[in-house]
């Protein structure tokens, strides 16, 4: 079997093992790693493969989370049925935001999405939507039990459920990136004008990539909301967007496997750094972000990929 097929299978097997052994809390943490990985994968499709820099993906994460929370509390929709709705809502919002983004080159898009990230908590608190969003207090969600009488705790079930969704999303992303659309996305990233001259419809590819990316990150938000059982405006501040960006860069902007590394990084590093001081996580993120930019621009994923290729060649 080819190496690039072996590794994902091994990772997946390694991901299922903890279900039997880990405590509920550690499973919750792993669930969040998977959630962040999906969110970062969405960002990677946009930034890494299409070259559109977003510092505001926390907004899509929040929209996905709120869509699920509102559907579950107001209309009592079962948690799994909220995912398709959330995907559609986020893809639509992403598409609409992608339209002005078409006119914005790299830096301006980063700036605009940054503004979106700063503004989103305020929009969530807005009193006109308070009946649905719960205003400043937010919404509380019940944790789903395992279905069909499976002998699993809610945390075990939720972890497996999240993992299953993630596998589907990763396979789709993998195929998109390796297919015709993926090549068009990367051509635009590398040289927009040349891509256009070769017959790629810039506007169409860019807006659809934006929608796809928003859908992924929004789905991550939905799964995250179910896992955390709570959404509130202040948990979706600008720092969510910045952390997703940090995870993306650390993992490697255009590395699909790297998104897992980036996700593990943003889930576990704050827990470790928090023990030093409250300010430490931000400082550690910042220092590592700058270090990665200077030393390994391809991120950890890019580094490992390079090593793997060298090993494969030497064989």
């Amino acid at each position, binding site marked *: 079997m080819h190496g690039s097929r072996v590794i994902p299978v091994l990772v997946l097997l390694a991901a299922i093992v903890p279900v039997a052994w880990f405590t509920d809390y550690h499973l919750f943490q792993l669930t969040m790693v998977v959630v962040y990985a999906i969110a970062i994968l969405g960002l990677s499709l946009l*930034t890494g493969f299409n070259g559109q*820099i977003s*510092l505001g993906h926390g907004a899509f994460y929040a929209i996905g989370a709120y869509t699920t929370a509102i559907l579950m509390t107001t209309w009592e929709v079962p948690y799994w049925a909220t995912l398709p709705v959330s995907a559609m809502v986020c893809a639509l919002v992403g598409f609409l935001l992608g339209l*002005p983004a078409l*006119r*914005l080159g*790299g*830096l*301006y898009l*980063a*700036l*605009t999405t*940054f*503004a*979106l990230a*700063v*503004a989103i908590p*305020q*929009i969530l*608190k*807005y*009193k006109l939507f308070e009946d649905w969003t719960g205003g400043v207090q937010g919404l509380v969600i019940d944790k789903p039990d395992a279905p069909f009488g499976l002998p699993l705790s809610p945390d075990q079930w939720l972890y497996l459920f999240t993992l299953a969704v993630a596998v589907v999303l990763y396979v789709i992303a993998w195929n998109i990136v390796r297919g015709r659309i993926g090549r068009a996305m990367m051509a635009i990233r590398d040289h927009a*004008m040349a891509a256009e001259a070769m017959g790629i419809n810039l506007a169409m590819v860019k807006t659809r990539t934006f929608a796809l990316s928003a859908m992924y990150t929004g789905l991550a938000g939905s799964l995250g909301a179910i896992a955390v059982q709570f959404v509130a405006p202040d948990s979706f501040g*600008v720092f969510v967007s*910045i952390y997703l*960006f*940090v995870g993306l*860069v650390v993992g490697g*902007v255009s590395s699909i496997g790297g998104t897992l590394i980036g996700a593990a990084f943003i889930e576990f590093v704050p827990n470790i750094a928090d023990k030093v*001081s*409250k*300010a*430490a*996580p*931000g*400082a550690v*993120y*910042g*220092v*590592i*972000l*700058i270090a*990665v*930019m*200077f030393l390994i*621009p391809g991120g950890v994923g890019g580094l490992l990929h390079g090593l793997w290729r060298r090993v494969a060649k030497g064989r």
Partner: protein
Amino acid sequence: MLQGVIHQVMSGIATGGIYASVALALVMIYQATHHVNFAQGEMATFSTYIALTFINLGFPYWVAFAIAVVISFGIGLAIERTLMRPLANAPVLASVGVFVGLLLIINSLSGWFFDYTIKQFPSPFPDHPMLGGYLSGHELGSTAVTLIVLVLVYLFFRHTRLGLAMRAAAFNPTSARLVGVRVGWMLALGWGLAAAIGAVAGCMVAPVVFLDPNMMSGILLYAFAGALLGGIDNPLGAVLGGFAVGVIENLGGAYLVGTELKLTLALVIIVAVLTVRPTGLMGRKVYSRV
């Protein structure tokens, strides 16, 4: 009604002055290096903490203010020389990454050194209404300080040799180097000046919004909006844009959207400018050769 409008416009101009200064700082760095400094707000917050530290040590207000401005100048200079220099020709993603890293680091340092509690910051200006009750003493004073800074910056760039050299370095680095301008140092000076202007803006806004490590994040957004509205490559435009955004924000907050959606208003201005007129009202169109 009319009095209310006048009042809102006047205090809009007062806060607009703050946005104008931060927008000017952004434009100075953008003009020289084509980078947008996402950490500008956090740098200004850090400078404000420096000023507060010296005030608490017993220094008179204006001395502490001057010390903070000078130290900020040094910090800006140092950041350019160490972090930004190697990025001169790096792709946009790398520069955005480094600026975001800088934002995180400075924000954490503010919280670490000066802790996260919200602090009061003194105002050097009298505490009673002025101009027939339309403006508070602090609003009038901070507007005056902002205007003085803007005029000084203008005079510096128009009428000193150093200012001329800095403009040359930003406008055409290659030719400037050929006539003996030390381009690298000019860019570093620009960063220092931007940091110093940010320090002034931070000290002027802190008495109004109170001081905490995230004080400037909203203000940075308005400054972005102002800079884009006026044209991000035109200092005068950015300053006018900053004032305009202050007035729009105040009028919009009072009569249109309410105070709860003020930040969203900044977002709307940014998106509107970038889609309708990407060069801003006074910016130059940029043509690029293939």
